[in-house]
């Protein structure tokens, strides 16, 4: 495979990166109402480009390459789109369009106003996030990737505080400062790599790096920095308030898209830049952090009183899920990190999370807009008032649980196969447990919205039909993702959803989730328990609540700045140490 000459389809890569930025610049120039119009012109264009790149990639059957200015690396910069990049490009384009359609209702410029701050900023920043992500996916140079990461941060942070309240400003500032720590660590690693190998081009580096101190240090620093930007436990200091406090259309961008940028970079670094440096113990650490994120994030999510915060904590848990593939991508001997089923599974998980989580935040935002609040205990009657919205939320939840034929299902299946193949049975438990936790908060919300309401539900605002359907389409998309992925993947991976085995798993997962929701929810879940609340809750529920409270305290402790920053450096040190353990000779 030739990675240092432009391929035919490579010509589409530079436009894919620059188109959103050009849209942003034109929007800035025209201003006022035109900002939104420009965005709506550029969204289909970008989507078409992403589809074009996918077609070109399928047709050429190899990585698309484009040398900018005709200069070959190491002096020049190459853009490259391999399978993972193409998948992410396409998914992000789809999700951006979905979010864009949803956001029209929230971020239209009101009549009689020449230009409104929130609308102006939102559409420009959406374009900026999109361009930055495309750059993250296709850039083949570690320094350009640094610039891309910063672009993503500068576009993401203002989205957090578009509402302008003090709480969101504080969340945004925390996000900014912590993300800056992360990016400077990343840059430090890139500098070391240049000092050691004289290039920042990914394939050239992959050929040159040796398992030696300088590469290990660089990998440890860069990984830790990127984890801070991805908000993997225990570095999620900024995530819950930021994602829970932002306007829903912005939360969807942040939660579904922005965190995928730095996550994708970790994947690039481990699988493409330094597969010869990483070791199984260091990958196990990533997996362990992921497992802890799943458990703590899910439990705290179940303890939330507000729907948007629940979804925000579920994002924290799902980020954990994205890191389980790292230990599973090692072969049975535990020596080599392989491009294979586990990586495919991880990518599928990322794509299905992007679509489903966007849908969930949109649905939560619609419920908030219609009711004027999003207190979970007061959601009775919503299912009747907003059936499409609730359907979108539940379908997105089911898709995340991994029911056939959702993308998460296929991802889980691939990861389970990989766990079997490499003999790491313990990850099977985590994978199945994660689904149960997801089922927990779906059940929690479902029970509350389905509850009958004694008085009529008063809606403070009519929700936009278009927004509801945008959420529904994304949720259904996530639910049917496995079918779409069947083209490149073998068909036997998807089984009949009504087969005994699948049905049994689904029922078990749902029952487990129901039990969790029963035990952990803040307000007692069932009407019977509700009437008897306080008097006699039952010993099990007491124990579960005690555990939940303990986890909440732990989460609050971990999210304090000194702790988080110390954890950041400790993790860097731990990665550095584990890269020495079991290093290939």
């Amino acid at each position, binding site marked *: 495979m030739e990675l240092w000459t432009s391929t035919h389809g490579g010509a589409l890569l530079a436009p894919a990166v620059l188109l959103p930025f050009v849209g942003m*610049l034109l929007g*800035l*120039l025209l201003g006022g109402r035109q900002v939104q119009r420009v965005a709506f012109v550029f969204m289909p264009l970008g989507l078409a480009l992403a589809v074009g790149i996918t077609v070109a990639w399928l047709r050429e059957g190899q990585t698309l390459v484009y040398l900018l200015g005709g200069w070959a690396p190491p002096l020049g910069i190459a853009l490259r789109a391999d399978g993972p990049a193409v998948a992410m490009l396409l998914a992000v384009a789809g999700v951006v369009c979905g979010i864009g359609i949803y956001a029209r209702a929230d971020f239209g410029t009101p009549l009689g106003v020449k230009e409104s701050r929130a609308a102006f900023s939102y559409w420009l920043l959406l374009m900026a996030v999109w361009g930055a992500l495309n750059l993250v996916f296709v850039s083949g140079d570690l320094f350009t990737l640094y610039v891309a990461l910063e672009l993503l941060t*500068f576009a993401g942070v203002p989205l957090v505080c578009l509402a302008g309240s003090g709480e969101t400003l504080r969340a945004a500032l925390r996000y900014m400062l912590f993300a800056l720590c992360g990016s400077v660590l990343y840059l430090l690693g890139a500098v070391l790599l240049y000092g050691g*190998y*004289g290039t920042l081009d990914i394939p050239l580096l992959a050929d040159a790096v040796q398992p030696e101190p*300088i590469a290990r*240090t660089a990998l440890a620093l860069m990984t830790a920095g990127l984890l801070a930007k991805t908000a993997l436990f225990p570095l999620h200091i900024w995530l819950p308030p930021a994602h829970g406090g932002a306007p829903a259309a912005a939360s969807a961008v942040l939660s579904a898209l922005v965190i995928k940028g730095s996550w994708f970079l970790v994947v690039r670094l481990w699988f493409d830049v330094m597969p010869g440096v990483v070791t199984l113990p260091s990958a196990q650490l990533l997996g362990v952090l992921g497992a802890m994120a799943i458990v703590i994030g899910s439990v705290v999510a179940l303890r939330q009183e507000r729907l948007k915060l629940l979804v925000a904590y579920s994002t924290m848990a799902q980020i954990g899920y994205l890191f389980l593939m790292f230990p599973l991508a090692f072969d049975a001997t535990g020596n080599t990190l392989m491009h294979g089923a586990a990586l495919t599974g991880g990518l599928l998980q990322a794509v299905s999370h992007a679509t489903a989580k966007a849908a969930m935040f949109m649905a939560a935002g619609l419920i908030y807009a219609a009711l004027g609040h999003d207190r979970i205990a007061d959601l009775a009657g919503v299912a009747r008032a907003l059936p499409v919205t609730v359907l979108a939320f539940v379908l997105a939840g089911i898709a995340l649980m991994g029911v056939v034929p959702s993308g998460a299902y296929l991802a889980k299946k691939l990861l389970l196969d990989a766990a079997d193949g490499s003999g790491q049975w313990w990850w099977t438990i985590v994978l199945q447990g994660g689904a149960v936790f997801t089922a927990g908060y779906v059940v929690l919300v479902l029970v509350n919205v389905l509850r009958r309401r004694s008085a009529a539900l008063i809606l403070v605002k009519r929700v936009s039909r278009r927004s509801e359907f945008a959420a529904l389409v994304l949720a259904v998309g996530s639910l049917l993702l496995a079918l779409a992925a069947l083209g490149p993947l073998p068909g036997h991976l998807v089984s009949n959803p009504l087969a005994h085995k699948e049905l049994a798993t689904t029922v078990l997962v749902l029952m487990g989730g129901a039990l969790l929701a029963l035990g952990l929810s803040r307000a007692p879940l069932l009407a019977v328990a509700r009437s008897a609340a306080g008097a006699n809750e039952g010993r099990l529920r007491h124990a579960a609540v005690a555990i939940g409270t303990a986890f909440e305290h732990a989460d609050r402790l971990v999210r304090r700045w000194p702790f988080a920053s*110390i954890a950041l450096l400790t993790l860097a040190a731990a990665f550095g140490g584990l890269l020495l353990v079991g290093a290939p000779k």
Partner: protein
Amino acid sequence: MTAIVSLVVALLLLWLALWTVVARDAFVAVAGFVVYGLLLSLVWVRLAGIDVALTEAAIGGGLTGALLLGAVGRLRGTEAAAWSERSGACTRAFAVLLSVSVATVLALCVLTLPEPPPTLAPQAAENLAATGVGNPITGVLLAFRALDTLLEAVVLVIALIGVWSLAPDRFWGGRPGPRYGADPDGILTYLARVLPPIGIVVGLYLFWAGADHPGGKFQSATILAAMWMLVQMAGLSDAPRIDSRWLRAGIVVGPLVFVAVGVLGAWQAGAFLGYPDGWAKPMIVVIELALLPTLVLVLALLLNGAPARSADSPPAPGETSLSARSTRPMPAGGTRQ
């Protein structure tokens, strides 16, 4: 002799950094940081990076210092509360331990760097002729790695959108910063009349020299932006409305022209951001010329901050720059006793 100078500079730099980080008073810390920035320029000269030294002095030390100084005057009253949240001895001990170990590991890496050192200098030298510029750094920035430079302009624009988005809704379309009243007899007014012509000449000289000698659009843009800020602070002209058409056009012209030239390259030279034979230098000059207004405007506007008043707010009577800008004048008792 020069080794001793380097050693002294290095030690001074470390001492200043430490002082800046541990100082109790935020104003002292920021003042220390400004001095640190100046000293850093000296380090760049010793490291054979005149271009970097100029950028560091202009942006790293100058503009960043101005931003921080502007901020520090407005956060009195939050300092004491923050100090009370100071982490305990245990945390600090941990922090020391971790910072020292990171620094040590880095130092070990530095000491085991490969010999001979990897470098792209020969390749850059070999290909420089094709770009038509004499300064290799300009060659890297605008030919070999032109994408980075384009993205850098985009970064600045996004940062500006981010800063603007922080404005309260009622001031959208208004002007950033306080309105400075003019004091016809003030020294600042005098300075704002005398200095800008010289500054503009120096700025344009740096811009022009950048093709073949150290210098370039960033250093030049910083000086021009500083001149504009000076005129604003003296009250001779007001900060612009952020919704004005010319302002927006000036902000986007650089990156848009850059992309257009890139597309032209794709058409004429067969590669996006490439230059047809013999046309490299004129096209680079076009890009740099288009980037100059963008950089001047964005750097100055980033310094100005979010819109903070409506477009037609009257100047506060008798307000001059220093009273409005930094409520924290030089500590009368001094800090060095």
